[in-house]
């Protein structure tokens, strides 16, 4: 028998009044995959992501994680098994960096000594100096804060990482750097990641699989290379053409033509 996918979404529908943010959407994600969810604003990307850790409850359909309906657990228990990183970061301003990183462990009653050790280990993983543990979030730059955000999500060793525009508010250099650093972590730790982004080039360059969402439905679902080759849907085509044309113009500039 075939092993079930790590994550299975089945017939998800979420309506806001007459508007359907998700319209009967189904998707399977195999363990170890890095999926990018791309689409214009309002296409339902964030809603989709939040149905997985139950920050949003769908009107119809179901979400299975590891072969089990996510509604089988209380939301808090479910969320402790899923890493969540989002654009606003949301570091707890009254806790220092180490306490922020170890918060998930504190919730499950891990002892302080062990928490400190784990926080130090994670600081190293996200390439921050060990002495950052004692800093307050207000003393961090945007890039540093999101590194801490990633470390906090990774601390309870989640099977699945959900990332909602994680680097969207950062400057382009930091953004690129953090994106690549995270991809490396994903590979090294054997994570499964679903990342929402509206930046098609980020999606194409980081992900194993790009899912394009328009109007609450999946309009394309392919590895980046395949999508570049044969994105047949004109709206999908239009999304991909933006970075492609930018790249061509940049290349032309470099050649001096």
């Amino acid at each position, binding site marked *: 028998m075939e092993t079930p996918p790590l994550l299975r979404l089945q017939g998800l529908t979420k309506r806001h009044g007459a508007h359907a943010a998700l319209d009967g959407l189904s998707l399977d994600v195999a363990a170890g995959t890095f999926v990018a969810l791309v689409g214009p604003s309002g296409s339902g990307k964030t809603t989709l992501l939040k149905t997985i850790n139950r920050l949003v409850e769908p009107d119809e359909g179901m979400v299975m994680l590891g072969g089990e309906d996510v509604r089988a657990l*209380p939301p808090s228990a479910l*969320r402790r098994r899923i890493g969540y990183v*989002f654009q*606003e970061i*949301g570091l*707890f301003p*009254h806790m220092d960096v180490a306490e922020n990183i170890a918060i998930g462990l504190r919730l499950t009653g891990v002892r302080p000594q062990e928490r400190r050790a784990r926080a130090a280990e994670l600081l190293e993983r996200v390439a921050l100096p060990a002495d950052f543990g004692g800093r307050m979030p207000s003393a961090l730059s945007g890039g540093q804060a999101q590194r801490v955000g990633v470390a906090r*999500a990774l601390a309870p060793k989640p099977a699945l990482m959900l990332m909602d525009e994680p680097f969207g508010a950062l400057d382009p250099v930091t953004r690129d750097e953090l994106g690549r650093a995270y991809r490396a972590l994903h590979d090294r730790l054997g994570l499964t990641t679903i990342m929402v982004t509206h930046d098609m080039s980020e999606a194409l360059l980081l992900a194993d699989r790009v899912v394009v969402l328009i109007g609450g439905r999946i309009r394309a679902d392919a590895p980046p290379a395949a999508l570049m080759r044969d994105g047949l849907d004109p709206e999908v085509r239009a999304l991909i053409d933006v970075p492609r044309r930018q790249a061509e113009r940049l290349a032309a500039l470099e050649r001096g033509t």
Partner: protein
Amino acid sequence: MNEAVAALPELLRAHIVLSGAAIAIAILVGLPLALWAAGHKRARVPLLALVGLVQTIPALALLALFYPLLLLTGAALHLALPALGFLPALIALALYALLPIVRNGVAAREGLDRGVLEAADGVGMTRRQRLWLVELPLGAPVLLAGIRTAAVWTIGAATLATTVGQPSLGNLIFSGLQTENWIRVLVGCAAAAGLALVVDGLLALIETGLARRSPWRVRTGLGLLAAGLALALIQPGRGPAPTIVIGAKNFSEQYILAAGLADRLHAAGYRTELREDLGSAVAYRAVAAGDIDVYVDYSGTLWTNVLGRTDNPPAPRLRAELAEALAKRDGVRLLGTLGFENAYALAMRRSRAQALGLSSIADLARAAPRLHLASDIEFLSRPEWRSVRDAYGLNFAGTRSYSPTFMYRAIADGSADVLSAFSSDGRIAAFDLVTLSDPKHALPSYEAVLLVSPRRAHDERFLAALRPLIGAIPIERMRQANLMVDRDSDKKSPEEAARWLLE
């Protein structure tokens, strides 16, 4: 000064216990209410409006309202709710403290960063964990600001608890105001203000401690607050002697008589507690309900206000009927008259009365067309004036209303000849005035009478301790005692005046 300071520790203790308990209740009720309201947008507006409405009621009125409210509730539930003293003061003050706590609680919850709340959910906090780990610590500065406001208000407003018979620093202020003993007022005000400042300072310490993550600040602040409350809660050991609660209304004569009652009862081996500054209506209901055991009231007041009678029988018959009606209706015992009246009277300078040969109001009626009447502000609109004017056909050359101080000035400098006085007013003696007799009994009788609560009404040992006071205080001596407390120089305390009065 010394006697005010001597009373301070016990009053301060009572003040701290009362305001501390009120603030604690307001926090225990207000915080959950605020949390709930923050999550229920529709409930928030009416809730805030409601607690805001409570706040618009003057604190004094709110306190007074709880007296009849508790009486009715107690009667409806067949419970012996104490309607006077600690309970009504506590409820009113706690309600009063609710607004800043609920309002700041809602504001604290609303002011939280959405991203931080999403992160709290995202990392898998339960609602309880989110509350304790995120919402309360982050909302603490705003919450604490509300608690500080509530604390300062409550400590200030707790001085008004005196008026419903709960001892507080207000005892010094109210009695000081009445007897124009400014040192008492000052000591009371300074103590209340000092207490408010100290509590506010300690709460501020906790607030900065939380903001700067400085545990010693938080611990010091909390520790000192707790220590202060604990110290106040330790009651001085009570002896086995039964405690008698003595009531007093809010003027000098009442303070003096209450102090005199206390002296007599101490001599008979009782412990006593004083409930001062009771409103006229409150005092009688309090004795009927047993919240106070004994106090002095005036027969005419009881006749009209409690029995609702409008006729005007002679004094002995009025007293007899009153005693019977009060005993029958409420079980209150009218033990007897102290021997003087505090009634409206018409008075003149002794020399002037003698020169004109006037000793009664009937005599006065003949001379009135050549004389001027000085009255206090309400006398001319009162039934007493209409009654005496019509009975004797009084027709003065002129009448003028004054505030009491200026009324006496007017008689002293000769710009008026006759004045409306209270018969036991010390100034009658001080200005060497005589009161004119009332042969037609047109002015109702306001004999000072001792009232005893139903519980003590047949307690012979208790009654025996009080009986020597019956008929023991002639009007001249009461005037003199009132004057000792009211005059500006060589002022005596009510206790000193009482000792002189009954020596």
